[in-house]
């Protein structure tokens, strides 16, 4: 059973978070181990496993980036946020240089702020792209599109996700610096 099935959902990326929470609470009320403390060992074990799956599914699906990562993993796509995507090679080189300056304590507050804005704008651009690609994916699913069409869209999602994860890592590095 995949996480979408656990929540009774088709494999779409546009989710209503309030409805998701409601289902989460309903499933919790059904399977939580608290309600099986007088049951047999087998039922108890089963309740813990089921609830863990419900919790794992909710944790993954409610967060947009994890949701995309998980969808890709179902189809065997891996998205790696640690490698620099080809499309970002030049820009990242430049940003990294500036980041080094910040880490070495040589950057002024204005320079740090401008770098922060620059990275944030980039991340927001990818967030929007990712969301749009998600909308396209949902349309394909709704239409019942052929496998090759789905594959192309998944590849596109994987690429944008790699780019946006990389930028998000940079953003984290800057906050930590």
């Amino acid at each position: 059973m995949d996480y979408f099935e656990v929540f009774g959902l088709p494999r779409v990326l546009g989710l209503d978070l309030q409805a998701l929470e409601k289902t989460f609470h309903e499933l919790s009320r059904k399977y939580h181990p608290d309600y099986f403390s007088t049951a047999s060992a087998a039922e108890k074990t089963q309740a813990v496993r089921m609830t863990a799956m419900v919790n794992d599914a909710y944790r993954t699906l409610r967060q947009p980036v994890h949701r995309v990562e998980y969808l890709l993993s179902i189809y065997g796509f891996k998205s790696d946020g640690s490698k620099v995507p080809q499309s970002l090679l030049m820009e990242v080189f430049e940003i990294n240089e500036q980041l080094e300056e910040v880490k070495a304590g040589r950057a002024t507050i204005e320079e740090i702020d401008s770098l922060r804005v620059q990275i944030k704008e980039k991340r927001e651009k990818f967030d929007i792209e990712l969301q749009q690609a998600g909308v396209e994916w949902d349309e394909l699913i709704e239409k019942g599109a052929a496998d090759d069409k789905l594959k192309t869209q998944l590849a596109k999602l994987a690429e944008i996700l790699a780019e946006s994860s990389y930028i998000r890592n940079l953003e984290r590095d800057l906050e930590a610096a």
Partner: protein
Amino acid sequence: MPKIVGIDLGTTNSLVAIVEDGTPRVIPGPDGSTLVPSVIYFDEAGQVLIGNPAKEKMVENSKNTVFSIKRFMGKGIGDVREDLPLLPFEVSPESEHIIRLKIFGRDYTPPELSAFVLRELKRNAEAVLGETITNAVITVPAYFNDAQRQATKDAGRIAGLDVLRIVNEPTAASLAYGLDKRKQGTIAVYDFGGGTFDISILKLSEGIFEVLSTSGDTHLGGDDIDETLIRLVLKDAGAGAASASIPAIRKAVNKVKEDLSTTEIAEIDLPSLPYKRSLTRSEFNSLIDPIIERTLKPCRQALQDAGLKPNEIDEVVMVGGSTRIPLVRQRVQELFGRVPHTELNPDEVVALGAAVQADILAGGKRDMLLLDVTPLSLGIETMGGVMSKIIPRNSTIPASATEMFTTFIDGQTNVKIHVLQGERELVKDCRSLAQFDLKDIPAMVAGMARIEVKFLIDADGILSVSAQEQRTGKYQSIEVKPTYGLTDEQVEQMILESFEYAEADIEARLVIEARNEAETVLNATMKGISDDEYANLSEDEKAEIAAAAKNVRETMKSNNHQAIREAIERLSNSTMHLAELIMNSAISRALKDKRVREIENG
């Protein structure tokens, strides 16, 4: 259904409570006091005193009067080295992975010592309720790690209690406050006790208490305030104060601390030194301010993790004796911008909440449900001493994660897994939890074996691990070596050694417990067989269930608890598939019902 009690096993005081007629109440001891000081006194003849009588011995018999043992739970000597100079106990040399206190030549681990306090609470409950109590819910600080939780569970077992659930103290407190009358909202629970500090942020909706985040410090409490004051006295009194006088100083400063919650000035008077000085509340405040400041950082972290700003918190609840200090209340009020709740006795509220949770488990209250989180990220050691996180902190529990492992050398039949808890990048900065050895892997070319390892954190916040080789489908045997803590065999040995039970009693108890379990499993099996899903089992599976059930019925007649346990195990295994089918069909039914309802509702 036997009664289930709720127990707050505190650093300074412990309490036991129960829900009767829908209302939780604390059960007092024979002296009428609801608080049992977590103090244990041993005399040379082997007599043990617990609670208030033990507390009276603290000054004159400090070497053999144990207190604040909770601070040692799940810890090795390296974790508490800085505390030891101010503590009168003798520590055994074999304390690297689990602290052992030496008292009259015998070593005691923290779970054994805590078990004395638990047994006292159990006796108090039995005297008032008029029946044997074997089931309990015990609370722990939310920020307790795996080893500390396991140590608490071990303490329960040694005391003859079946610990049905470990509950986090701040969450328990929120249950007691009756905040469920409020339909929606966010709650912050600030729990500052004798030895530990916790902050939990909860979201309440229609009876579901969902913890969003938790943070804290398991080594920060009223004890630290006492120690600051002890150091002040030692500095003032100079060389005249020998370490032997520390217990007397501790008692005196503790009183001054308590007095200053209601008066503006108090006196530290130690005629035995002699030493005398007055302390104003504002002097006291400036001394303890750094300690209070240390509680605010976790508060900000928890808010950030919950994605909330201080002004988005609807209710703030104060728990723990240290929240009686006016400066603590003031600081918390400043942070959240609202007056915190202090209506309930901060010493009792956790025990009351534990009783409410016990009542939920007993099937009393079905409308309330607690969804708690794991306070620390769980990870495994990867190449280069880096910790790779597999379950992030603040994940709702139970939670699980699956990782694939393989072999590096041709024919390798063993794989080592090192499990850790913590937030830092490097293994050396995290808490080592356990080493797992995957054994008997079928010999293959390097990298060919695919071992799927499942990490499961249960509703108590305690980890278990299972593994399966994917190519052969074979379950791997796992040998667990807890880094800090007792093995199952050691706990069993301690149960046997505990003063309470002669060997015959234990045998009899084990047989009764096994028979009860057998009864439960048989009933569940009968229920399962009458389910529609039973038809979907293979004939072999049906035959095995019937044979296993018959075997349980026959074995139950014997007095051999091990044989009964083995028969139960066989029956449980034979019904595993059926239980899974029933659960799955219930899930799809639930989802179908929901869709139908949604359509009906338009």
